């Protein structure tokens, strides 16, 4: 049963990723990305990572992508009409490089199965909100606090850049 669920989710994830890249309409692209993220959340559940599955939907699909859509609507971005209207060397080159990278990664992934045969039993207990919360506030305190700084900086920075204010100080 899990195998079938996985196949469906995996196909969905890859298909939506592809659709996102080749779609001319930016809004559609964004929606495909949402679909991709939701299917990933499903895969996370298969891997016993419940906490992350929820976060994935809440933060990524829910918050980040809404922000994307909001900006797309705000800027009223034009469609990329010229995409794929004719063959370009660039596309071929990009495809070739992509194949090369995938090939190398696949090559180096060989043999992982023997190393990690199956999902660990411990996982059912480890992936819960409780377990994650526990380590976040003890072992991972420093990165956690630093993330707070990071987010503050991001918000302050975004305000600085996006705000439309031009100041006049005295001329030198």
């Amino acid at each position: 049963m899990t195998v079938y669920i996985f196949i469906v989710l995996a196909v969905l994830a890859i298909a939506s990723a592809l659709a996102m890249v080749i779609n001319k309409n930016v809004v559609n692209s964004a929606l495909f990305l949402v679909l991709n993220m939701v299917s990933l959340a499903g895969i996370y559940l298969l891997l016993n990572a419940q906490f992350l599955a929820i976060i994935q939907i809440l933060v990524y699909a829910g918050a980040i992508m809404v922000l994307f859509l909001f900006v797309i609507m705000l800027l009223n971005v034009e469609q990329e009409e010229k995409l794929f209207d004719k063959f370009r060397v660039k596309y071929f080159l990009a495809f070739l490089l992509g194949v090369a990278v995938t090939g190398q990664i696949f090559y180096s992934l060989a043999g992982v199965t023997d190393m990690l045969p199956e999902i660990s039993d411990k996982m059912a207990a480890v992936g819960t909100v409780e377990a994650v919360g526990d380590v976040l506030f003890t072992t991972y305190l420093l990165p956690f606090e630093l993330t707070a700084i990071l987010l503050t900086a991001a918000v302050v920075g975004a305000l600085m850049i996006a705000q439309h204010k031009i100041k006049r100080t005295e001329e030198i």
Partner: protein
Amino acid sequence: MLEIDWFLAVSAVMFTIGIIGVLIRRNAIVIFMCVELMLNAVNLSLVSFASYHGNIDGQILVFFALAVAAAEAVVGLAIIIAIYRNNLSVDVSKINLLRW
């Protein structure tokens, strides 16, 4: 039971699609979405490794990656807005004032 290879393979393919997207798309927002796709692909790898190793470090890394992605989204979209204000376009092939 599913072997880890399958998860990693899905992740690698998604990562590559992200790369190709960055290379061929010209809309800055879409390029950024492709980057988000790459990050998601990596997250999948991390989660699957964590599950098969049976320790939580990988999941924590994903958690932080999510936070970083959120922060990047905020800043990135702000920058894209600034670009749009200046150029009235988000087509990166037209944004090449600084070069050579």
